[in-house]
């Protein structure tokens, strides 16, 4: 497992940042996010919490060496559950990829809270992503072999059709020559 950590600050109040979070997409830099859907949302007035489950749809080009793993599928999905505590002023988002999660899992936790030094005007953002690959060399080899067999079959079919047309084209010529002798 590999871990990615990051801490950032936004020079805006937590209230503003938490509201803007619902409008984060679309934005001109995150063009890979093509859809955001709310799947479930529950408000607990006693605790002052709002829990939301969302589906994030992404379309991102992937490196060519990974292409054979995903089999040409161009969309991927992420499930995110966020909890907002309006009394504590925290927004915690946890997300995990749904696509290819048997091979690689990216589990991300993000927390927005008021910066303790200037809580009214500044928001602290902490991000941790745990990235775990489950694919064994064996699984990768199987995938690579499947893909190669499929590609070989495609090329073989093309080869047959191509030679068929050559045979057909040469046929007349052949019979013409044969007739003369």
């Amino acid at each position, binding site marked *: 497992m590999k871990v990615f950590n990051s801490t950032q600050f936004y020079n805006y109040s937590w*209230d503003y940042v*938490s*509201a*803007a979070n*619902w*409008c984060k*997409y*679309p934005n001109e830099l995150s063009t890979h*996010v*093509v*859809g*955001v*859907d*709310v*799947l*479930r*949302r*529950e*408000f607990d*007035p006693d605790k*002052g919490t*709002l*829990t939301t*489950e969302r*589906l994030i*749809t992404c379309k991102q080009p992937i490196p060519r060496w990974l292409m054979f793993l995903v089999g040409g599928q161009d*969309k991927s*999905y992420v*499930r*995110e*559950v*966020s*909890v*907002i505590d*309006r009394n504590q002023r925290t927004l*915690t*988002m*946890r*997300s*995990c990829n*749904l*696509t290819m*999660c048997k091979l690689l899992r990216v*589990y991300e936790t993000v927390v927005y809270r008021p910066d303790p030094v200037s809580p009214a005007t500044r928001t602290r953002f902490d991000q941790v992503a745990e990235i775990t690959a489950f694919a064994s060399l064996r699984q990768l080899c199987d995938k690579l072999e499947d893909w190669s067999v499929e590609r070989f079959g495609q090329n073989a079919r093309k080869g047959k059709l191509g030679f068929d047309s050559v045979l057909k084209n040469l046929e007349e010529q052949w019979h013409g020559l044969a007739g003369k002798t």
Partner: protein
Amino acid sequence: MGNLMSTSFAPECTDLKQKYDACFNYWYTEKFLKGKSVYNECEDLWADYKECIDIHLQKQGIKPMLDEARKEAPFENGGVPLEKANEK
């Protein structure tokens, strides 16, 4: 806030989603954050939107992946994976 609105994974549901989002964003800023609300408003718009996406989650084959993820990291748990919750 938010002149541009995000779309749904299913284009058929985008209209319903944007109506719901507009209602929710207002409720969130004006009521939830200010502690003025005792219930989750916009529920009617939500029901229409949810009906639409439920159909397409099924159609596009997303539902099984989602169900699996829900088992692993339940909504009721705030999306914390069960194996992690058990570690603590």
